[in-house]
């Protein structure tokens, strides 16, 4: 009886041991499962078609071109490689500009015929209409509706997920925004983080260290939404005033907040690695007449370089994944950043801000899950690399000793 009971408990322990691996596999499965349909979506909104005049030589337009046509950035078909013909944009809402109430019918029963007529008559027309109005005897030409392709998403420079007729799911502005903020965040926090780590492990007395340690732990414990709130009410107005900007929400505000948030990670990990430097090496250096400071920067820091590097990399990982604080202070404009003082938008902030409004199962929803996949892959690669490097380092150290 006792054996059976112990066996059961041992199996439960074993199962628990595997839980994290199991969860990671589940995360991968579900993210890909939800995001997977993205490339099966059509470029044009579901239930709609885009029609042009039969004499128009153009058969295919990509999502960006369609969007620019309907935003009236292209005004002539020859800009798109067609004939010299002015582009006439037609949406269902503007049908009453072309036809009278009588022509449309009392209950709009003649709408299909009117659409047919306008597409057949105007040579430069491009019409975005629900597919239900397109009959068999349609006199226009329907543009090929391609699937959203990989390049458009991962190399696309525009993120307009709710644009009609053709939503833009370019990840480039979001990815660059994320990397931009994280890079500057680490740039700001590295000198501070490293100094504090050196101070705590090498210089400070036991009492000072015992004072600093809980402070850094507390800094780590403050919720990101509180950092975001603080950034919003203090740092953002400060930046606005200092640089005389129209809005203070900017990449700079995000970087500063993220820099503060990345500090605990950088400090604790690099302090640990500085501490791991063997006593004998320090003593050898001191015995050669080096001062404490010379020992630190010529012996201790080079020895701990791998630990410091992993601290930096993990700090970047933390900054890349941070959501709430960034969402609150960066202004969330989906543009490729060119300066730190402009609003920008990161991947996590985009997911947090838009998932609530995206209809489940739609292209937008799937694009947001695809962003989640990107985020997951970035952090997974970072963590696994760090893991690999540190385990290699400790292995080498073991060999040497």
């Amino acid at each position: 009886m006792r054996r059976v009971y112990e066996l059961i408990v041992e199996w439960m322990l074993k199962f628990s041991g595997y839980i994290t691996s199991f969860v990671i596999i589940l995360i991968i499965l579900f993210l890909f499962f939800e995001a997977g349909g993205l490339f099966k979506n059509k470029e044009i909104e579901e239930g709609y078609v885009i029609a042009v005049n039969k004499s128009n030589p153009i058969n295919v337009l990509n999502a960006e071109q369609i969007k620019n046509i309907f935003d009236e950035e292209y005004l002539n078909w020859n800009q798109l490689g067609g004939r010299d013909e002015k582009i006439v944009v037609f949406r269902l809402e503007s049908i009453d500009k072309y036809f009278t109430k009588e022509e449309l019918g009392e209950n709009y029963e003649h709408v299909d015929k009117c659409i047919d007529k306008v597409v057949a008559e105007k040579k430069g027309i491009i019409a975005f209409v629900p597919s239900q109005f397109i009959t068999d005897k349609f006199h226009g030409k329907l543009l090929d509706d391609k699937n959203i392709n990989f390049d458009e998403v991962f190399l696309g420079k525009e993120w307009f997920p709710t644009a009609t007729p053709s939503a833009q799911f370019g990840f480039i502005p979001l990815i660059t925004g994320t990397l931009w903020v994280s890079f500057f965040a680490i740039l700001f926090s590295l000198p501070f983080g490293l100094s504090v780590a050196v101070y705590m492990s090498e210089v400070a007395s036991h009492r000072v260290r015992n004072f600093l340690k809980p402070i850094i732990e507390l800094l780590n414990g403050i919720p990101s939404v509180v950092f975001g709130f603080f950034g919003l009410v203090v740092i953002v107005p400060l930046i606005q005033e200092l640089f005389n900007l129209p809005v203070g929400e900017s990449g700079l505000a995000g970087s500063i907040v993220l820099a503060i948030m990345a500090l605990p990670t950088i400090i604790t990990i690099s302090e640990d690695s500085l501490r791991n430097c063997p006593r004998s090496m320090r003593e050898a250096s001191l015995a050669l007449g080096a001062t404490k400071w010379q020992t630190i920067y010529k012996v201790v820091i080079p020895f701990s370089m791998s630990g410091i590097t992993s601290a930096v990399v993990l700090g970047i990982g933390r900054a890349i994944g941070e959501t709430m604080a960034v969402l609150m202070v960066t202004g969330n404009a989906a543009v490729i950043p060119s300066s730190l003082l402009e609003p920008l938008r990161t991947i996590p902030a985009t997911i947090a801000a838009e998932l609530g409004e995206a209809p489940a199962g739609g292209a937008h929803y799937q694009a947001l899950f695809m962003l989640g996949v990107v985020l997951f892959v970035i952090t997974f690669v970072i963590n696994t690399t760090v893991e690999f490097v540190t385990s290699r380092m400790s292995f080498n150290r073991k060999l040497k000793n």
Partner: protein
Amino acid sequence: MNNKISFPSNYGKRKRRSQNLAFYIFSAFSYFIVLILFIILGFIIYKGIGVISFNFIFGSPENGMTEGGIWPAIVGTFYLMIGSAIFSFPIGIMSGIYMNEYASNGTVVKIIRVMTNNLSGIPSIVFGLFGMALFVKYLDFGDSILAGSLTLGLLSLPLIIRTTEEALKAIPDSFREGSRALGASRLQTIWHVILPMGLPNIMTGLILALGRVSGETAPILFTCAAYFLPHLPGSIFDQCMALPYHLYVLATSGTDMEKQLPMAYGTALVLIVIILIINIIANLLRKYFSNKAKMN
């Protein structure tokens, strides 16, 4: 100073000066960070303390969240903390025990450890996406306390596993050997010797995990958090309000910013106080038990 070796005569002075300069800079940076923390805390306490009243703590939000209190959000946060604890504490501790006491195969342990560290590095918003896909949609819990707690529980697992493992690792092998030599089984050794010894450190880890859970917003955005809910949730399948999400809502959306801002300061203060209390308890616990260990 003896200058027989070819050092410049002021070498000692110079190197001492550069050392002093470097150490001054280091200590200045360190205290600057302390200053940052105190500025953040001080600012929120200063702005928020005037808002705190009996009605603010124990009232419901009224009038488009410009008046009233935050009681539903406080209760919601505690529900989420308890819910995630019920799920993650046992599994996390058992996982830690397995890793330290049972797993013998080097590669398996290595893989599990890499996975655990990876899980702790996954951004919280990805947990939110995952929780929404699995718990809300696939298992059909809907936006609920259950879905939110499970998501938060997964998020805090790595922290619990790691602290448990470290706590157990600190126990000398002689205790295990002594117990086994007396004829106790592996499980009896763990239950009667190892766990009681590791408990203080494990508990510190658990409390810190609770602190992390109480402040997370991104994972509950799509799994549980309600924008506005004047009454308390009735079952685990209801949505609930939560302090961090409430703070986010007050600070970024809404109709009357002027009147909402004081409420936001108050909410931030309550949240910070909860985190502070949790941190202080964890630190006291650690100190108390380490003193006790020293006395033995």
